[in-house]
């Protein structure tokens, strides 16, 4: 069953970000919040990898990008808080990574 993975750690902080990516399966979605939006930022080396994940939709929370003066990279969609809630409704399973 597809899962929504919600990640809030920076890619530069410990191994949580990389571990989460390694656990994604086809059909899953990844929502980046908090410091994790750093990895979705245009120009960041991680953003390219996120944009090219096959079979996985990647989202970044807009408020966290704006707060840090960042823009989402290519193939990464931004969501507002309502979009965040909708995503949690769309996926039967939720995985929180902190």
């Amino acid at each position: 069953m597809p899962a929504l993975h919600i990640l809030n750690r920076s890619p530069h902080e410990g191994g949580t970000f990389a571990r989460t990516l390694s656990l994604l399966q086809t059909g899953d979605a990844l929502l980046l919040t908090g410091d994790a939006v750093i990895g979705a930022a245009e120009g960041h080396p991680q953003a390219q990898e996120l944009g090219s994940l096959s079979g996985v939709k990647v989202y970044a929370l807009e408020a966290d990008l704006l707060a840090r003066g960042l823009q989402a990279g290519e193939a990464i969609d931004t969501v507002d808080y309502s979009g965040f809630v909708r995503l949690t409704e769309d996926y039967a399973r939720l995985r929180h990574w902190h």
Partner: protein
Amino acid sequence: MPERRFLLSLSRAPYGHLDGQEGLDLALVLAAFGQNVTVALLDDGVYHLTRGQDSSALGLKPYTRQLPALGDFDIRELIVDRAALQARGLSASQLQAVTHEDDDFNEHDSLLLLEGAALAEKLATFDIHFGF
């Protein structure tokens, strides 16, 4: 006793944690008491200085706006880890300008971009270092 030089370093991104705000608060308090203070942005701390930040949707105080005002507190040096910028796909042109005035009211750039051994050598010159 000779003057002690303080270093406050921020190593985590803003808004995800309180660390950065606490570190900056301490820098400003020390400066307000006339201490010699330098601030350094290391690792994810470099995101404190990106241009165009808007934290209103998060409902958080835009505390990073204090950084360009460091000069008003007579904090004349803001060290930025250049290697950390590069690892994050950031360039110096994406950072806000930070300046200070010298004793003759001439304006100078406060940013000091360093990396590797030169950065480590610089950080080692301070008497007291608080890392956040």
